[in-house]
């Protein structure tokens, strides 16, 4: 029961919301759509659900073309960012509603709602109205309703975005477990790279209506296919700088240089280095010094995020421990360039291993 998008596009007037996209999601898989707001995650999900019809292209499910099939006729569940429940029904009736529509016997409804409530830890609240619940409990109710029927396709559109920080942490922990035994396709949209990583599965990184990268989540993080994918997958934002490679040396506008890896051809590149590889303390012998003027130092207790300007280019450093810096002061940072990505003029990642072998 795989879900396939075949050359799907979506245009609204002259605006292209989704560029031609091919995606295949296998049954039993957990898939993440990662991208900023307006990257096209919601539009893509609505086309998967059948809430929106693609401008061109086809949606196939289980080997059938379902492009024109109405959402009611597909076996789909959806969870939204807002907690959507029936306000004048009890939590029990809310969860039971899809089963009642499917005309299941009362005893089975009772059993399945009970089981789902147990899993979502809302068993004690079944008699209450949604308005009497906390935000987290309301969202659990909405999720329970979506999961209680055996859907072939479950779509979750930033379901944790409106929850308290700690609750988000807890639910993120529980979510993969909920889907582990199901043989359905799960698609989960999020804007947060860390959330994507912790949830695992496979990720489609999206940017301005295109899928810019696709693969197992951790692999995309470690080997982004290109510039856009690396940008989508970094919070705080990845540091980017123009670099030129000449006679075995890499040189940045920032006045920083280091020995180029074997096989890196001469020319201009964009280098990308994640903030945690730029530190106020030297991490490795291959680190180079980047000097800059501190704009803001954010301390999270366990980590310090320091924004600074080097040659008027914004840089971010993320490091363990507390490193207070005064705004406006010049400071030295150590960038571990052995960890940096090289992107060519078209924004593609340069495969250093392959280049090294060739050389």
């Amino acid at each position, binding site marked *: 029961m795989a879900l396939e998008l075949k050359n799907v596009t979506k245009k609204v007037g002259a605006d292209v919301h989704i560029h031609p996209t091919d995606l295949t999601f296998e049954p039993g898989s957990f898939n993440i759509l990662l991208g900023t707001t307006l990257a096209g995650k919601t539009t893509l999900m609505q086309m998967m659900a059948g809430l929106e019809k693609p401008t061109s292209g086809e949606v196939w499910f289980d080997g059938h073309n379902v492009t024109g099939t109405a959402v009611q006729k597909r076996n789909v569940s959806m969870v939204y960012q807002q907690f959507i429940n029936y306000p004048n029904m009890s939590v029990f009736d809310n969860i039971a509603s899809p089963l009642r529509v499917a005309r299941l016997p009362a005893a089975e409804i009772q059993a399945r709602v009970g089981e789902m409530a147990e899993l979502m830890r809302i068993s004690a609240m079944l008699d209450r109205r949604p308005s009497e619940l906390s935000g987290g409990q309301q969202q659990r109710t909405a999720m329970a309703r979506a999961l209680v029927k055996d859907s072939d396709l479950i779509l979750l559109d930033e379901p944790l975005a409106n929850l308290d920080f700690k609750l988000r942490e807890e639910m993120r922990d529980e979510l993969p477990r909920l889907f582990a035994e199901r043989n359905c396709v799960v698609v989960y949209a999020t804007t947060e*790279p860390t959330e994507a990583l*912790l949830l*695992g599965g496979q990720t489609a990184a999206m940017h301005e209506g295109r899928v810019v990268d696709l693969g197992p989540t951790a692999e995309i993080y470690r080997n982004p296919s290109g510039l856009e994918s690396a940008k989508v997958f970094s919070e705080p934002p990845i540091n980017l700088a123009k670099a030129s490679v000449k006679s075995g040396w890499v040189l940045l506008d920032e006045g920083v240089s280091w020995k180029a890896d074997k096989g890196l051809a001469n020319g201009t590149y964009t280098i990308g280095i994640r903030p945690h590889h730029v530190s106020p303390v030297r991490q490795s012998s291959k680190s180079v010094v980047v000097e800059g003027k501190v704009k803001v130092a*954010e*301390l999270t207790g366990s980590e310090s995020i320091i924004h600074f300007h080097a040659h008027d280019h914004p840089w971010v450093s993320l490091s363990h421990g507390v490193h207070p810096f005064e705004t406006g002061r010049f400071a030295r940072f150590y960038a571990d360039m052995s960890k940096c990505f090289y992107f060519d003029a078209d924004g593609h990642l340069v495969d250093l291993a392959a280049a090294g072998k060739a050389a």
Partner: protein
Amino acid sequence: MARITLKNLKHAYMPNPVNDEDWALKELNLDWDDGGAYALLGPSGCGKTTLLNLISGLLTPSHGSILFDDHDVTGLPPEQRKIAQVFQFPVVYDTMTVYDNLAFPLRNRGVDETTVNKRVLEVAEMNDLTATLGNRASGLTADGKQKISLGRGLVRTDVNAILFDEPLTVIDPHLKFQLRSKLKELHTRVPNTMIYVTHDQTEAITFADKVVVMNVGEVVQVGTPKELFEEPHHTFVGHFIGSPGMNVLGCEVKNGQAYIAGKRIQTANKASAKAGKSEIGVRPEFVKFAGRGLEARVVKVSDAGRFSVVEADSAGGRVRLLVEEGGAIPSDSAHLEFDPTATRIYTDGWLAGREGQP
């Protein structure tokens, strides 16, 4: 600009509070320095919004008093307290331009137009609103609107304090980061006392010089971000701050020392003489795999990119620890070592030796 003092402050929404639970805000004494950046942090229903409304004057406390620079303002309505507030949902005057929105608080106070113009331009520049000054405020995005709300506070020169009530709730996640930095930067430029209410530890800690952590109507710790992280005074603080939160493990106490399954655990403090439930608290950052130490079995590894969160079961309970990218993770049985300077004994939730002292 003012120093804010809260004296024996208590509040209940019901007329005759009897039990401890009847108080939405339990007795509180605090001193906030002029020009400081403070955060009130806690889960929903912990009393932080009640406290904020008491300070702004939208609520009058059932007991105790509030002083701005030693003047008692307990009975004053919000408009006489000279405070500014940024709300959870952006409040802008839809029919006015951005300029008129910023000028509104000054014009209401009869400030002359030359001064208004000067102040508005100054504040617009600080908030990156200069380009949109002539636009209708209703057309702006959520973060633009929040900047206007903030700007209306900054434009006044008579403000005692600027209060923020979860101001980033409706902001796009990738813009939250920017606005957070902006707030921090603004605080370095304007000398106002700022109080920021949130349930988000990152927001609180990145913004504030001092964080007030609250739980069920009670302040459990007041401290710098570093103090909250390194020496939580309460297991709640340990749990609530940090992601993942502090490990809290069951232990026995003998002669002031802590033991898990008969094995002695070195700690930074001594168990208190008081009777009560004893626990060991240690953050995931201060636990590592070692050749010897507490026996445990690895049950789950989550790859978070630059580090992995490893979960291991021990005799004291589930332990989470962080392993750097590329670090070795045993596949099954392992030994855990706790950093003795960052491992502490807690009695009934409170740090042993300082029970009940936030």
